[in-house]
């Protein structure tokens, strides 16, 4: 019989091969390598249990095999491996991760339609997290996400119809009527419910109907958002206002990492299931993703008006530029010392750096501004 280390090592070689094959688009090879990796890692894990190897080795091997089983769609095996690991004495950090994998298995099960028939204009929404119990969900977490999906559908339709972005007010009567959102009764999953985009609740649509097409676009774009593929998302939604709005709505729908850890949508396309698993937590500033940083340096004149070095690894330095914009400056070492001096003097400075976020400049150079202060434009009196 092969020893534990060799079995595990071979399993990991195969798991890496599966990962590389997947990235090369060789799905069949990836599946084959994954199945072989699982077989060997499962053997290694049971061998470790039988030989009573000490922690954390026992748990790491069982957890590793469970992950491969989830990837291979062998959910029952994954449950058995996790159950065995938790029945031992895993370190708390790994125990928490095992519970996470267990929750993920539940999520996969709930994304399964299990007899629920979806039309092409339907979606199944699944939520998992501390605010969710089987068949019950905190009302806010659920209703806010349902409202967000309705807005995503309506905004996507408007954007596709090239309707000028509306700052406020309801959508057109046609869109409001034809793309209404209907809900089924919840199912006792983590929390699962069917949604229907239609003009009446009985209305199942063909896949070429607008409701089905828009729903597909929403799911595809949410997938790009979750993958952080903002280049593709920008191409799909070239209008900046619609793009920013989409990012904001997607952030509201996305998990928060604790109360709602996973958000899933299952739809049907040409008779096949399409699953979206949103895992990325919402961004604090939904519009931030729209900022595209470049390495082109910027030169700014202004005054350092606020400085706080209490958190030495993350000092807060604020610059008011001469056009009245506030920017946070990122500076370390000598540059930070200079910022402290300029803040104390209140003198004008010239800052050169790279704008790395909408309101953040990474400083490359800091110096006192020479010459007279530019005259401010006189304000018109009314």
């Amino acid at each position: 019989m092969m020893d534990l280390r060799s079995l595990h090592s071979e399993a990991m070689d195969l798991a890496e091969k599966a990962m590389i094959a997947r990235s090369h688009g060789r799905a069949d090879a990836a599946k084959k390598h994954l199945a072989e990796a699982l077989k060997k890692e499962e053997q290694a894990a049971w061998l470790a249990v039988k030989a009573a190897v000490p922690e954390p080795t026992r748990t790491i091997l069982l957890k590793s095999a469970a992950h491969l089983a989830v990837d291979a769609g062998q959910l029952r095996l994954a449950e058995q491996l996790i159950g065995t690991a938790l029945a031992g004495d895993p370190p708390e950090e790994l125990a928490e991760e095992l519970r996470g994998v267990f929750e993920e298995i539940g999520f996969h099960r709930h994304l399964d339609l299990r007899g629920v028939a979806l039309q092409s204009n339907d979606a199944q929404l699944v939520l998992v997290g501390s605010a969710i119990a089987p068949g019950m969900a905190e009302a806010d977490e659920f209703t806010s996400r349902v409202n967000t999906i309705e807005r995503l559908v309506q905004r996507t339709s408007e954007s596709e119809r090239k309707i000028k972005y509306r700052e406020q007010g309801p959508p057109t009567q046609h869109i409001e009527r034809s793309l209404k959102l209907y809900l089924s009764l919840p199912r006792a999953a983590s929390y699962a419910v069917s949604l229907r985009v239609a003009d009446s609740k009985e209305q199942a649509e063909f896949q070429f109907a607008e409701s089905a097409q828009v729903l597909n676009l929403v799911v595809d774009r949410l997938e790009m958002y979750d993958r952080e593929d903002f280049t593709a998302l920008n191409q799909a939604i070239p209008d900046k206002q619609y793009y920013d709005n989409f990012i904001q709505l997607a952030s509201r729908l996305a998990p928060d990492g604790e109360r709602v850890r996973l958000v899933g949508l299952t739809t049907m396309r040409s008779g096949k299931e399409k699953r979206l698993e949103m895992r990325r937590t919402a961004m604090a500033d939904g519009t931030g993703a729209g900022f595209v940083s470049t390495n082109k340096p910027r030169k700014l004149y202004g005054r350092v008006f606020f400085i706080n070095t209490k958190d030495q690894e993350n000092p807060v330095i604020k610059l008011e530029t001469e056009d009245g914009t506030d920017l946070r400056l990122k500076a370390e070492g000598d540059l930070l010392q200079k910022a402290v001096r300029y803040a104390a003097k209140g003198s004008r400075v010239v800052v050169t750096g790279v704008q790395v976020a909408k309101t953040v400049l990474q400083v490359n150079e800091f110096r006192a501004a020479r010459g007279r202060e530019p005259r401010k434009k006189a304000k018109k009196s009314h």
Partner: protein
Amino acid sequence: MGKYTAEAAAVVLEHNEHKTGVAMAVAAVRTSQYTVIWPALHGNAKRTHNDLPEAAEQGAYGIAFLLVEELTDLRVTERSAKRTGIDYWLGKGEEPLFQAAARLEVSAIVDNAGAVDGRLKAKLKQTDASKGTLPAYVAVVEFGQPKSVFKKR
């Protein structure tokens, strides 16, 4: 795997218009600069790594492997499966399987140097030592500037 991660890193660096020989600032116990050099990318490299966030994650692992060898007396000795990927563990190579191994936690940013501190804090919180468990090293790799932070938790 090393070749694959190196290629992924080069794709993301070139996406950010960097050329071989670009300087990368690395903040560890002290801040240093390293020169990142890579061979010309083959024709399919960009197609292979066309999912940029995924390429950044793989590339960040490649850079983190090098930082481990440069900045510690450890190396990658073990692997375990995680969700659609691999977890890497560090050691000296003499220990029994996973005994005394430190975990390598890696976070990748395609192009946003302003996000590095936040990511580092999130990673350190995620692997909070107060939960009383396994030692870990955290590497956050940002490809826009480019810069990296490497810390022991």
